[in-house]
């Protein structure tokens, strides 16, 4: 029943074109559409996505000279075929830039926007897309290295800066959860420390629906003892939430529904 309730709220953002807006009433965009496609197994959403692929194989939003690249996330929802292969080619060819105006030394990871630094969440999506859809890709190792480099001192990940001007930065629950899916089964230490960071922080960060949903998804996927308590908190949070962030709601649907398997490797 809870899944149906959440799914209905996600669908409020569905447009007549089949794609989903970032909030109800917004125009269709690749990221919320991909999340909804994963969480709800929505074929209309996949069809809309397939119709938006660029000639370079990418999916995203062009904002002036900035291209917001959602290709890796979209790959998780695409059917096998030529369009998926072109999208994966694009993912493999995309890398973060470590210094302003220069590639800098590896690892590179993946950026939010073309030509920018490789941050935790887009790097996690890049790794996950390749591990699930093109597991022989040589870029996987770079992505894992990037996530290992960006791991916080106490374990887990924030947006991608473990240290700033000599100060250790703390991990965030939401980014840690996403990175845990990408690194699962690769290095036991990354997973163990990441889960420890989730344990230590999820209750204090539970005021955010996206955070809580991502935590539940990770706990369920890793068969963690906190999964039940976190899921109950998520159920309460969804009931109370007034926000209509489609990605957050889709994460909630993903966390408690059948779509979660899409984030599992192997």
């Amino acid at each position, binding site marked *: 029943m809870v899944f149906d309730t959440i799914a209905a709220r996600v669908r409020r953002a569905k447009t007549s074109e089949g794609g989903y807006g970032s909030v109800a009433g917004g125009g269709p965009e690749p990221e919320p559409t991909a999340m909804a496609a994963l969480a709800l197994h929505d074929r209309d959403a996949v069809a809309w996505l397939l119709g938006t692929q660029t000639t370079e194989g990418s999916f995203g939003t062009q904002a002036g000279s900035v291209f*917001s690249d959602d290709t890796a996330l979209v790959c998780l929802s695409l059917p096998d075929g030529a369009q998926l292969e072109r999208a994966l080619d694009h993912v493999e060819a995309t890398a973060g830039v470590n210094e302003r105006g220069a590639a800098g030394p590896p690892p590179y990871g993946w950026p939010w926007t073309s*030509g920018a630094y490789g941050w935790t969440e887009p790097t996690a999506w890049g790794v996950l897309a390749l591990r699930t859809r093109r597991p022989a890709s040589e870029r996987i190792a770079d992505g894992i290295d990037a996530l290992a480099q960006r791991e916080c001192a106490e374990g887990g990940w924030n947006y991608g800066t473990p240290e700033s*001007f000599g100060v250790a930065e703390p991990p965030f629950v939401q980014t840690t959860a996403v990175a845990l899916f990408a690194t699962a089964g690769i290095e036991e230490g990354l997973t163990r420390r990441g889960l420890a960071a989730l344990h230590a922080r999820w209750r204090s960060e539970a005021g955010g629906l996206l955070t809580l949903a991502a935590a539940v998804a990770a706990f369920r996927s890793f068969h963690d003892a906190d999964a039940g308590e976190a899921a109950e908190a998520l159920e309460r949070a969804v009931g109370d939430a007034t926000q209509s962030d489609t990605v*957050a709601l889709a994460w909630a649907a993903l966390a408690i529904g059948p779509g979660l398997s899409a984030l599992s490797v192997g």
Partner: protein
Amino acid sequence: MNEHTHRIDRRTFLRGAAAVGTFAAAGAIGWEIRNVTTHDPWDASAFPPRDSSRVAVLRAPSYEADLESIVLGGLRTIGADVSGARVLLKPNMVEYDPHGVVNTDPRVVVAAVHALRRLGASSVTVAEGPGHRRDTGYVVEASGLSPALRDARTPFVDLNVAPSSAVPLRSRFTNLGSLWLPDAIRTADVVISMPKMKTHHWAGATLSLKNCFGCLPGRVYGWPKNALHWAGIEPSILDVAGAVRPAYAIVDGIVGMEGNGPINGTAKHVGLLVIGDDPVAVDATSAHIMGMDPAKMPYIAVAGRFLGLSDLERIDAVGEDPTSVMTPFAPAPGFGQTGSITGGQ
């Protein structure tokens, strides 16, 4: 309130800056502005010159003070006209640190909400798009902003996910060309930037102009909005502020942040609110109060050529004399090294 108008001459500033010995040497940072000296990179028709700017520097000793009355008095002093207007307040809520002073205090935000209603605003909305945390709901809940706004029956808009569309830039300090701006920003009659008074390791200080970064949706520009960093932080500040065009600014300088800002600095009690009808003038005045020379802060100095007034001698400062309340801030480490920034810092 002291209604006497203060104008800060250059000699007075230099005396103060020399006495505190802080930012005077940090002026020549490694930053270039394309074509500024040969061709103004903005459409003159979009940025008509200002004849004057009015900034109120107001004592507010603590967050327990009657902030609504102070803000109301400040807005009246600068002649803020919001009657019948749909007002959008943009505080700085970049992320939440339970032990820090990162954000604009919710009590200042709520005080502004009530003051604007008393001045006849038809609606007041609070909006933010946090730059580090993707989960805006967490930031505004944990920081206390959400509960405060619920009590004040004030709507909040998450600018990171709000409907947005492309807006062509009328200035060209970067090669961004156009920006995605939330409809909430574009359709507001009046946008008021409400930053925290704090240091920033790349820009020197993050005030009402830099605060405009939070108007851009993270779902397009990422968390953090690194595309703006790579386009050049200070050029980006100018282009983004030139697109957002806040009409007024209210700086939370009751407790600021010095040192390792904008996230990891330490609390600095100043006991002031700075309110003005020109964000550039507010930033210049606030920087002066922080012990910095705004003339040596490139983005403020250049903003003073097209967005507002940055010349302290031309700004009408009322209330407290900015020089007499100067409270030097320890600079952020890394300030002056913008040429060597890397994405991970």
